[in-house]
């Protein structure tokens, strides 16, 4: 009997620990760069897109603290921030990651290499 519940405990604890608590992505895309509550400038990196390596699926972001290279996966959400133009933000793609643009990157937790969970790119009119 004890074994049964011990097994249950192990399974459930293991199951629980795989469920990383996450910020909601759906509404995140409508939050302008730098305004994500509890994240911007704390857990995300805001800067200028220094270089893009589409083949390697990597981008380098730089700001006054230095530069950081981050991987992009199929799960990385890319959003176009058009709030400065008073236009609705949109889903984007890797082609929208153009050198010199202002971006904000949230790095996924618990990965061995730095991988972007989402990237916001400021786009002009």
């Amino acid at each position, binding site marked *: 009997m004890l074994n049964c519940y011990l097994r249950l*405990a192990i399974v459930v604890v293991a199951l629980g620990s795989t469920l990383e608590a*996450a*910020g909601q*992505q759906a*509404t*995140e*895309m409508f*939050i302008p760069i730098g305004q994500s*509550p509890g994240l911007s400038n704390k857990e995300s990196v805001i800067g200028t897109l220094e270089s893009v390596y589409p083949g390697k699926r990597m981008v380098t972001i730089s700001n006054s603290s230095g530069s950081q290279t981050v991987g992009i996966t199929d799960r990385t959400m890319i959003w176009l921030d058009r709030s400065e133009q*008073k236009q609705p933000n949109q889903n984007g793609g890797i082609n929208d990651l153009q050198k010199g643009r202002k971006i904000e990157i949230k790095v996924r937790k618990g990965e061995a290499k730095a991988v972007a969970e989402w990237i916001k790119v400021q786009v002009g009119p």
Partner: protein
Amino acid sequence: MRWLNWSRWYRKVLILIVLCPLVWVLSAVSACVSMPSPPSDLVSKGRDIFFNETFKGNGRTCGTCHRAEANFSINPSFIATLPANDPLFVAEFNPDLKKNFENPKLMRQFGLILENLDGFGDLENKFVMRGVPHVLAQRTSINSNQGPRTGWSGDGAPGDGSLRSFATGAVIQHFTKTLNRVAGVDFRLPTEDELDALEAFQLSLGRQQDLTLPLPLKGIVPKRGQEIFLDNKLGKCNLCHANAGATANFGGRNIGNANFNTGVENLPDQPADLSGERNPPDDGFGRPGDGTFNTPPLVESADTGPFFHNNAIETIEGAVGFYDGESFNNSPSGKLLAQADPNGVSIELDGTQIVAVAAFLRVLNALENIRQSLELLESSAKKGFAERAEDRDLLKRAVSETQDSIKVLDGGGLHPEAVAHLQKAKELAEKAHSSFFRRSGLTQQAIDELRNARVQLIEAS
């Protein structure tokens, strides 16, 4: 003799003439000095924002859906009392929000609110319909080992996913003027200070700590319900709802709030589905979802139905009965329980046992209502003459809590003697609310009646 009578009559009239303007002046002064004073602390600032701030959106506030008078939730019977121009119904009168913002039929019939949790790219097809969870006892219910879990599936907040960030997502989803959802045009985002205040206010609501079960209950059926609830071989409720709260407790280790796939989505004949309206499946946590939803606290459950994320079940008895059904027992969580059971049984309860567990939850809820009513009345009793507006608000909320306790006990045919005391307490609090001079005495009598009611439910500690 006649002259003396005339003299007395004249004196009485004179006193009345003097007193009338005096009472009028006192009332006027009272009204002036009891005008709501500017918020003096974070919680009261948060309360003000919660109920009054529209964030330059479509007119809704947090309190539009999380009504104080409906236990910070909303349900169809409450919705039916609202005027047609209530901001809840904004999709019915704002042409920009007529399509793909809400489903008024499902809102009015079943209290369901539209959410685009898997993104806003295909508004016509990608949405879910969810009930409004109460926001009570959040201090006890949202922390997990993996971080905070908010909303029905634990991923209700953008940003860092915390309760503090929740309002930002809610404004984007529910407050927007148009479906473009442009910050600074369709709404403004809450400021850092506003988020701090909203979080403080929400954390102040309801219980601040979990119970320690078992409680020394008096009723035979609720007492048996508690035994079943705590029995890890029978009811197994306490595994995922430790102490009737929202945290899971396995092998003596509390893992905080946890997400489970309990098969609620697989329930047959869900009311919203029967309506014929579009009601896509809800995939729960994440994007795409993994089918899990987080665990709500149970102490507040009996007066905050309908139950589950999709308002699928109306009564607390039905909600307990769900765990004896096919949908739960064939779900990943049900199978897990069966695997751990020496007889391979998940949860197997008979009708009387289901009712007993529900009776236990009804009594827990009533005790919490009484605790809150007492707290409100005791605060009210301390208010001075100049704080009359605040005092009346406290009394109004106490009446509402007491009414809930009556409904919860009466609905299960439980503790009629306690119900009688609660009725008296409610009447006295109502009188205190409208009384000018006897407020204090009536409030104290209401407090006594509430204590009398509590004694019927639980042994004095």
